[in-house]
């Protein structure tokens, strides 16, 4: 029997895994071909997608950049060392996996997420079994506390303490909510976990429910993740049939039911109180705390909310013991953290490393650094609530305390790598445009202050900045931080403050010299063609939407600056690097 596992998480499908799977399915059942085709989640090596693993006679060969034709050859027993990425559990070709310690992601890309058997055979539901048959709720909370696990959604609140608060509240019913409203642009670990290992989230929720005395769970998942929603629905049905969700689990008097609520697209609903308002069918606007959800949450009942990655760690911690987790990481931050590496990076993807790895190790050793010929400039951490950390701080070990000290935040672990083509003022403008449009409008400073800040940043990037603009931005930023109710408002100015702190000279270049050092702000860039490099192929001429480029075939072309709208499409089209930006 030859088993071919196709990585069909959303990222794999976007790279063409759907066609590979479809083609392989047509081969199944062919005479003389003993073939089984299954799906699997994302192993995190997104830069090699689509990925196919061939399993035969106890051996495993992982191939990357697989086309349907190549997949057919693999199905027929062919091999090709050129596309071979990994053999069995050895190091992968690029050395991305050996640097990792995969706890939350332990099953992603290794099992069929649609198979409860696969989950069980890799130790699935053993933790819940252990909890229900031999541990008191207090003991469970003690283990989680001792592990040092902190909320992975961004807040970093100690998970054990959070559970303890909910457990201490007296009520007939309590809720466990899984926050799967992953909204930070640049973070996709929760999506990958839901698509690659949905049962572990259900198991984590059930353990939490037992510990705090809840009987109902709700998964609040964003509608932008259609595949994750399908996986979750399937998993709930299978777990119900097998008796892992429902009444009197394992013959005990513990009952646990789960429902899915689809988010409707509002970033602010990642905030606990807004999320609960949304489940209740209202506009997702944050409320003042206290009362905390642990005391008075969904429908007025005690509620515990954890994010996907936090819950994925729970079964492992219960099974392996708290010391196994707390022995990893730093004094301040225990265990491992999943990071989504994206942006201007060679080997983008999902990695899980012990806390305390430095930014430089993550970007260069794991991620392979920035594209060739470019210079590493900064990382953006924590999404719209985070900030930019400059390349000069590459030796900083990543943990909650260190990252907060830079003015950024750990957030959910999205790391967007920036190189010398990225303008830091534009970066600040981008994030502020995001928070401004996502502000729910409840607090005046968040609603209007972010708008005013955005206007200033738009002016600066358009070459109309004024000398006092930096001070105006700082003043507004502090007012917004002081006068907003929820995390969205209090952190919204972070991207602006950190870029001013570390890249002030870029702001000044825009304002005083009307120059964008990264040649990124279109209003401040001039395009011309390098006559020596231009081959006269005519591609740019064809692409130019305003016919600003002229020239005969095989002759160097020229750009008419008076007509040029500086859209930059010629740069993206030219195969010879002949377009100069200055």
């Amino acid at each position, binding site marked *: 029997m030859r088993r071919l596992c196709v990585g069909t998480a959303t*990222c794999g499908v976007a790279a063409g895994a759907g066609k590979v799977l479809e083609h392989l399915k047509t081969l199944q059942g062919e005479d003389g071909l003993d073939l089984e085709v299954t799906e699997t989640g994302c192993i995190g090596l997104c830069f090699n997608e689509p990925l196919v693993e061939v399993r035969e006679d106890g051996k495993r060969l992982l191939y990357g950049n697989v086309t349907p034709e190549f997949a057919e050859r693999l199905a027929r027993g062919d091999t090709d060392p050129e596309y071979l990425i990994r053999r069995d559990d050895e190091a992968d070709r690029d050395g991305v996996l050996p640097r990792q310690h995969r706890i939350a992601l332990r099953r992603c890309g290794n099992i069929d997420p649609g198979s409860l058997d696969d989950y069980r055979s890799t130790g699935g539901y053993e933790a819940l079994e252990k909890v229900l048959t031999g541990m008191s709720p207090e003991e469970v909370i003690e283990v989680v506390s001792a592990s040092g696990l902190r909320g992975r959604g961004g807040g970093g609140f100690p998970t054990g303490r959070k559970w303890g608060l909910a457990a201490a509240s007296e009520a007939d019913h309590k809720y466990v909510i899984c926050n799967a409203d992953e909204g930070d*642009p640049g*973070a996709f670990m929760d999506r990958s976990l839901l698509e690659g290992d949905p049962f572990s989230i259900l198991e984590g929720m059930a353990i939490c429910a037992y510990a705090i005395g809840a009987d109902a769970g709700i998964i609040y998942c964003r509608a932008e993740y259609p595949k994750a929603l399908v996986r979750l629905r399937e998993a709930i049905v299978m777990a119900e049939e097998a008796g892992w969700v429902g009444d009197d689990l394992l013959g005990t008097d513990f009952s646990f039911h789960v429902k899915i609520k*689809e988010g409707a697209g509002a*970033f602010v609903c990642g905030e606990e109180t807004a999320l609960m308002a949304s489940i*209740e069918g209202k506009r997702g606007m944050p409320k003042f705390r206290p009362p905390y959800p642990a005391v008075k949450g969904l429908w007025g009942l005690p509620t515990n909310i954890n994010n996907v990655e936090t819950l994925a760690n729970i079964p492992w911690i219960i099974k392996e013991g708290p010391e196994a987790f707390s022995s990893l990481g730093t004094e301040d931050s225990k265990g491992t953290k999943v990071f989504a590496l994206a942006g201007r990076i060679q080997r*983008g993807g999902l990695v899980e490393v012990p806390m305390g790895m430095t930014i430089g190790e993550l970007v260069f050793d794991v991620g392979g650094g920035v594209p060739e010929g470019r210079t590493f400039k900064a990382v953006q951490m924590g999404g719209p609530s985070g900030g930019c950390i400059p390349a000069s701080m590459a030796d900083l070990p990543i943990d909650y305390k260190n990252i907060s000290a830079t003015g950024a935040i750990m957030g959910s672990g999205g790391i967007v790598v920036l190189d010398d083509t990225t303008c830091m003022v534009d970066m600040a403008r981008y994030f502020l445009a995001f928070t401004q449009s996502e502000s729910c409008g409840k607090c005046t400073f968040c609603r209007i202050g972010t708008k005013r800040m955005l206007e200033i940043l738009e002016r600066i990037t358009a070459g109309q900045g004024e000398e006092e603009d930096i001070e105006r931005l700082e003043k507004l930023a502090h007012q917004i931080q002081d006068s907003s109710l929820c995390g969205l408002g209090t952190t919204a100015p972070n991207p602006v403050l950190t870029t001013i702190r570390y890249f002030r000279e870029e702001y000044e270049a825009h304002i005083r010299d009307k120059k964008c050092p990264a040649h990124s702000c279109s209003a401040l860039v001039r395009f011309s063609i390098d006559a020596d490099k231009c081959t006269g192929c005519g591609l740019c001429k064809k692409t130019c939407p305003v016919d600003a480029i002229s020239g005969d075939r095989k002759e160097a072309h020229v750009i008419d600056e008076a007509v040029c709208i500086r859209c930059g499409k010629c740069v993206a*089209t030219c195969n010879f690097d002949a377009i100069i930006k200055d």
Partner: protein
Amino acid sequence: MSTAQANRFARSLWVTDGASGDLIPLLQSAQNSYGYVPEHAMEAIAGITGISVSEIYGVVTFYKQFRLTPRGRYIIKVCNGTACHVNGSSMLESTLEDVLGIRRGETDADQLFTLESVNCIGCCSLAPVVMINDETHGNLTPRKLTTLLKRMQREARTEAKEASDA
């Protein structure tokens, strides 16, 4: 609007007990059935849940998912996540505007294409990304995207012609 659409929406009204927590799922069902949330659907939901139409309108306009006007057959979402932004998503958006002749939030006259932007669809390592209906296209350049759009336009035109011939 077809009977099939109305029936589909009506089914979701039958299975609810009108709890206020069902408001968003009901609106999602209306949007799935009609492609947007028509006024009569809001009225029907108000009748069942007891929530006033004005309050429902407040919820509809709060969340980005809901539309108040019909959309095209192909919903094109340009991802505007951080990774896509630093890899040139704004250029993809202007390419789409040029080729389709519509701007963000608009639908073309034939009700074929609707252009939208989305915060992040989590395919950051394939940036820049565009989602067309439920299919995600990664590592796009303005040229690749133009080729893709032209092909879709051709197919849609052939289909429309076949439909009118038949």
